[in-house]
């Protein structure tokens, strides 16, 4: 019998009070964004907001709890944006969205100075008894979002990013699950050769984690060949965006198979229309039927990060995901 685990890819919207308080404390300009050496007041505001979004997830009944990535002003580029060897430059568009982040330009060695993500996760661990989930950008996406002025070679840069993420994972507290977010595998598909290296880099980061690892893709279906390579990475599940493209995803899985577990983006992280638990459950059942597989575990998740949503709809969607997982349990 398939176990449905309700979770999210993190990167939550800030609670509305925190939007105001942090804008007042930090400012509105690009030089005011997170640097890794925030003042005590800013740290306190984020601590309070983190506790709040943890409670929201627990109250909703989610099976996995993320720390919310509320400090990630630069979205998935955050781990580099706070790195000492990285200069943040102008504001650039975040994938195809009406959102922007500071372009991180890597100007020195990435091996030292990790632990920023692990520290936030440690702060979350104090409030989460079970089901803590870590979130990181996958190495391919993080490299894609950044500019390299130090390593001088795409393959070396990707390796360095993977090593940097491995260091970050090594500093983690105990976590149940790790989501590696890899939208660039869809949005900026790797070329020949690069696809194999991307999978190897994901494998390296996943292997460092003492947790279930999900390599989650979104904003469409991953290209066939890149998917075939991704299957070589030793992850516990691959995540698919069923909202953006379910047909190509089903084809990939029919053609190349998938892991014993799967993550399914069944709730739209970029639209305020709230899916019912029944709709969510139908989408999961549909995928299982189409791929003719009963998975050990299905991670039912929003397809994308959820900071695109206003807080009320974001919270409604968390409840819908949790209720969808319960619905399944009730029928079992």
């Amino acid at each position, binding site marked *: 019998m398939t176990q449905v685990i309700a979770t999210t890819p993190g990167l939550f*919207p*800030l609670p*509305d009070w925190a*939007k105001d308080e*942090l*804008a007042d404390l*930090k*400012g*509105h*300009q*690009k030089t*005011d*964004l997170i640097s890794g050496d925030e003042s005590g007041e800013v740290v306190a505001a984020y601590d309070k907001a983190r506790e709040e979004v943890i409670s929201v997830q627990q109250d909703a009944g989610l099976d996995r709890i993320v720390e919310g990535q509320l400090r990630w*002003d630069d979205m998935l580029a955050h781990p580099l944006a706070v790195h000492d060897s990285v200069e943040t430059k102008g*504001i650039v*568009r*975040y994938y*195809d969205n*009406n*959102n*922007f*982040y500071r372009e991180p330009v890597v100007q020195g060695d990435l091996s030292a100075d990790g632990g920023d993500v692990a520290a936030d996760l440690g702060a979350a661990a104090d409030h989460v008894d079970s089901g803590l989930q870590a979130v990181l950008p996958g190495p391919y996406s993080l490299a894609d979002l950044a500019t390299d002025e130090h390593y001088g070679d795409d393959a070396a840069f990707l390796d360095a990013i993977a090593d940097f993420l491995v260091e970050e994972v090594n500093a983690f507290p105990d976590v149940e699950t790790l989501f590696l977010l890899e939208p660039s595998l869809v949005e900026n598909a790797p070329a020949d050769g690069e696809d194999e290296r991307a999978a190897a880099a994901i494998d390296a980061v996943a292997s460092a984690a003492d947790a279930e690892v999900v390599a989650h893709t979104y904003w469409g279906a991953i290209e066939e060949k890149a998917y075939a390579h991704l299957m070589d990475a030793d992850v516990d599940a691959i995540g698919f965006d069923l909202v953006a493209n379910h047909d190509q995803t089903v084809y990939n899985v029919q053609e190349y198979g998938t892991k014993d577990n799967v993550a399914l983006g069944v709730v739209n992280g*970029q*639209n*305020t*229309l709230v899916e019912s638990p029944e709709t969510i459950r139908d989408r999961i059942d549909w995928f299982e039927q189409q791929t003719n597989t009963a998975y050990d575990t299905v991670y039912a998740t929003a397809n994308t990060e959820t*900071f*695109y*949503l*206003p*807080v*009320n*709809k974001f919270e409604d969607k968390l409840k819908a995901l949790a209720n969808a997982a319960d619905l399944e349990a009730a029928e079992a």
Partner: protein
Amino acid sequence: MTGPRDQFKPADHPNDHFLLTTVVGSYPKPKWHDRARELFEDEDADFGAEEWEESKDDASRLITHEHERAGLDVICDGEMRRNEMVEYFAHRIDGYEFNGRVKVWGHNYFDKPSVADEVEYGEQWLVEEFEFTDEVAERPVKVPITGPYTLANWSFNEVYDSEEQLAYELADLVNEEIEALVEAGARYIQIDEPALATTPDDHAIVGECLERIVDEIPDDVRLGLHVCYGDYSRIYPEILDYPVHEYDLELANGDYDQLDVFKEHEFTKDFAMGVLDAHTAEVESVEEIKENIKKGLEVVPPERLTVSPDCGVKLLPREVARGKMENMVQAAREIEEELDAGEIDVVASGAEAHADD
């Protein structure tokens, strides 16, 4: 279709040549008007709907006259009654709802509305704004209106199968509003589509929206399209096929690095070129603006050049915005004099161009 332009030339225009000077729309709000909004939104304050209406009227009159004193040929009221370019309209269209702010970048947020039901024309959008401004103004009034593509693209769509379908539904509502504006006497309408710059592949959708917008609008109504902050090479020359007279484009911000895009293919419509940067707080000198205007003359002849800022100037300090307007008008008048005197070579061909040129 290069448009009914002469109606906007003032009777006492001093020069033979006429470079139409105008604005894109928004202007800094007077501090007392911002304070009035705060009081109106404060439930504890003794400041009601009547006082708020009076504040909007006063601000509208003040900025309309400020534009006239700057010498602009076509003016507007600086959008004193509007808060934001999508929110303002979404509040007036049935079918929209607001759920809260979402991040754009850093700690900059936008109250992004949701289309939660089929969109329908609700209360009037801009007719009262136009009637008031037209009443207090001596110069012709331009009406900027957010285009349907941008209204669709910057909303959550909970109802329609596609964003394209939502944009067409909204285009029909914009058409209805423009018909009402024309009925009220408006003769210069500017459709703002900044979202086109970020999703240039959708230029055909914007074209279809415009076809719906212009349906049954009389020929003597001048229609402009404003686009800003994008890669114009991805939409030009395709946009020349749109059923509008004029394209209002931001170019000063990028120091005219995209000007060549418009020279590679003949610019067959009127060119409203940004000659002022809307996001620098220094007032450009008359000489500097004149050099910018001359760049416009590399694209179109004087009778098809409109002179305006890059974009709405609401983020500037008010005295800076005023200084920019004044210098822009002076620069345009000086260029006209130099054109009259034959001191400027117009590079662009145009109405006089021959087939064998």
